[in-house]
């Protein structure tokens, strides 16, 4: 049973200015066996936070509690964690076996036990036939599996993974993603996983921590952060292609933008804006590409949320196609059925499912609910 508490953690690097924190006020309780994913753009502080948990970076302010113990000043080797690095960080002069056994040898396990554990990990990861090879003789995927194996043999209750798949090609990434998920289900370790890939975050996490500029933007299940983003950043970051945003003026249940786009909101949505005091005010309207439709049935349902647009770029993806379209000066992207594929220059009627639209305060960028 291992729980981790990050209580108002701050990190400032030695040469940074007084109030320039790489991570500020990071507050999170991680439950036992939970799979937590830190996600955010490069430089948002996710890896720094992970390294603070690992003990590879000092914590400037705040408390790190692991399993009820204050661990701010504990050396990495005494935190009982295993870590997988983005660039594998294997020992190049050692064989795969020795790479996996190194941590066990240091902990004075006897030889038979080491062999047993390494053999088990190698079997789980399909590395048995490569145990005598050195890392240079392995492919990228195999090297990353060795790095995972090194973590597995340790029997550590906490796994920290710092973008472990970002150096792999797309196909390998998908299979390794499934492998990590399977390992988590088998080993029941508390796992903290850092990535900038929101697909990894959505598919693997029990809970996602979305970060930007050193601050936590939202913590929630993948469904929560996708369906109820707390602010414009989270809404834009989660989802691919990202959410369309329109700077609009809201008045009497109708939103209009400066380029001529006019849409009537369903009653439920306009009620929310009215109650929040946004009548006759500027807001940001956000709508996901998959909530813009080309089917005639949708137009019949939402006739006042349908626009005549011109396709600028179209991409056929097999089952779906992406239409980068324009209404007067307003551009947006829609994911439609492959049957509704249109060539650039075609005129197409697109309907906005405004029941699924999101609204954000123009100044604070917080979601209006």
């Amino acid at each position, binding site marked *: 049973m291992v729980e981790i508490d990050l209580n108002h953690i701050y990190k400032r690097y030695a040469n940074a200015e007084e109030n320039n924190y790489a991570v500020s006020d990071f507050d999170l309780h991680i439950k036992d066996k939970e799979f937590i994913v830190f996600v955010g753009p490069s430089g948002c502080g996710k890896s720094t936070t992970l390294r603070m948990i*690992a*003990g*590879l970076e000092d914590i400037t302010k705040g408390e790190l509690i692991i399993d009820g113990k204050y661990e701010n000043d504990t*050396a*990495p*080797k005494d935190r009982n*964690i*295993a*870590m997988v*690095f*983005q*660039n*594998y*960080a*294997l*020992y*190049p*002069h050692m064989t795969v076996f020795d790479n996996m056994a*190194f*941590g066990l040898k*240091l*902990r004075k396990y006897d030889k038979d036990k080491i062999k047993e554990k390494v053999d088990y990990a190698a079997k789980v990861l399909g590395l048995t036939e490569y145990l005598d090879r*050195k*890392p*240079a*003789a*392995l492919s*990228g995927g195999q*090297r990353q599996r060795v790095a995972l194996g*090194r973590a597995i043999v*340790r029997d550590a209750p906490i796994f920290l993974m710092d973008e472990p798949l970002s*150096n792999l090609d797309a196909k390998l990434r998908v299979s390794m993603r499934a492998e990590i998920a399977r390992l988590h289900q088998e080993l029941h370790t508390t796992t903290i996983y850092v990535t900038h890939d929101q697909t990894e975050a959505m598919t693997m996490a029990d809970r996602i921590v979305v970060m930007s500029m050193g601050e936590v933007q939202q913590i929630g299940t993948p469904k929560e952060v996708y369906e109820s983003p707390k602010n414009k950043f989270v809404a834009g970051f989660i989802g691919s292609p990202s959410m369309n945003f329109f700077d609009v003026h809201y008045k009497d249940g109708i939103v209009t933008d400066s380029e001529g786009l006019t849409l009537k909101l369903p009653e439920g949505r306009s009620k929310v804006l009215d109650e929040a005091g946004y009548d006759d005010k500027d807001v940001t309207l956000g709508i996901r590409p998959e909530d813009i439709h080309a089917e005639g049935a949708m137009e019949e349902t939402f006739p006042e949320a349908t626009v005549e647009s011109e396709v600028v770029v179209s991409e056929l993806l097999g089952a779906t196609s992406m239409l980068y379209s324009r209404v007067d000066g307003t551009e947006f992207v829609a994911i439609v059925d492959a049957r509704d594929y249109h060539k650039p220059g075609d005129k197409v009627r697109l309907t906005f499912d405004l029941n699924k639209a999101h609204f954000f305060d123009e100044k604070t960028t917080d979601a209006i609910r």
Partner: protein
Amino acid sequence: MKKKKKIDSVTVHSFSRGTDLFFNIIVGIFALSCLLPLFFVIVISLTDENALATYGYRLWPKVWSFAGYKYLATMGGELLRSLWISVLVTVVGTVINSTFTSTYAYAISRSSFKYRRFFTVFCLVTMLFSPGMVANYIVVTNMLHLKDTLWALILPMAVSPFNIIVMRTFFKRQVSESIIESARIDGASEMRIFTQIVIPLAVPGIATISLFAALGYWNDWFNALLYIQSDNLVPLQYLLMKIQSNIEMLSQNASSGTQFGGSLMAIPKEATRMAMVVIATLPIACSYPFFQKYFVRGLTIGGVKE
């Protein structure tokens, strides 16, 4: 129909025959320019002194002679003792030098070391501003009291700032921070990380600085001139320098018609000089192949994604 020529990756990256020949000739000339002087020195050391006087320097002498080596062999025990001192100083000095250099360089190569800037500048300052001979002499003789000991030949060159900078760069480039962090998480102490992870990865770098250090110790005669008085501690280079000075002195005295004129006639001057060069060069030249096998690049390949 003309069959399509198959092109593989080797063909794509290879030169045409003409270009290949051109580069081979260039490289051959370069190799000869390195080897020929050494060969020439060996040949002169084996040339009869009179033949040298009559026919001058030749690649293939008219008369072969071991007179130069025989003259040096008359010093027998003294020469062997100096050779032993030189070997001892070179081996011990190289081990000490590479240990000090690599530990210092490793410390300043790590971003987690708080005082790395201070110690880097401290090292660079000693490269840029030398304290001079007098200060060194006072430290070695009056402060450390090393005069007339082997340590006087070893310690003054035990740390090389240039090698420190070379190794610092090597550690920074070749030993990824994440490998060290990985070992730290695996439970390794700093000493174990250095000895079991960093050193094996830095073998090419350590071989390079060891070679520099070995050359420095082997060729050093100046420290012996300053600090060594006992005949038992004279290194080879200093002994050869003394022999050379003696020959010079005898030569000057012979021209002024003193009693040493006769003994000078018996000494094959040029051949002895070249024999000394051969004796001084050959052992260190023979050690090159041992170092060479460590000059392998790409030892860290595969450890981290580059």
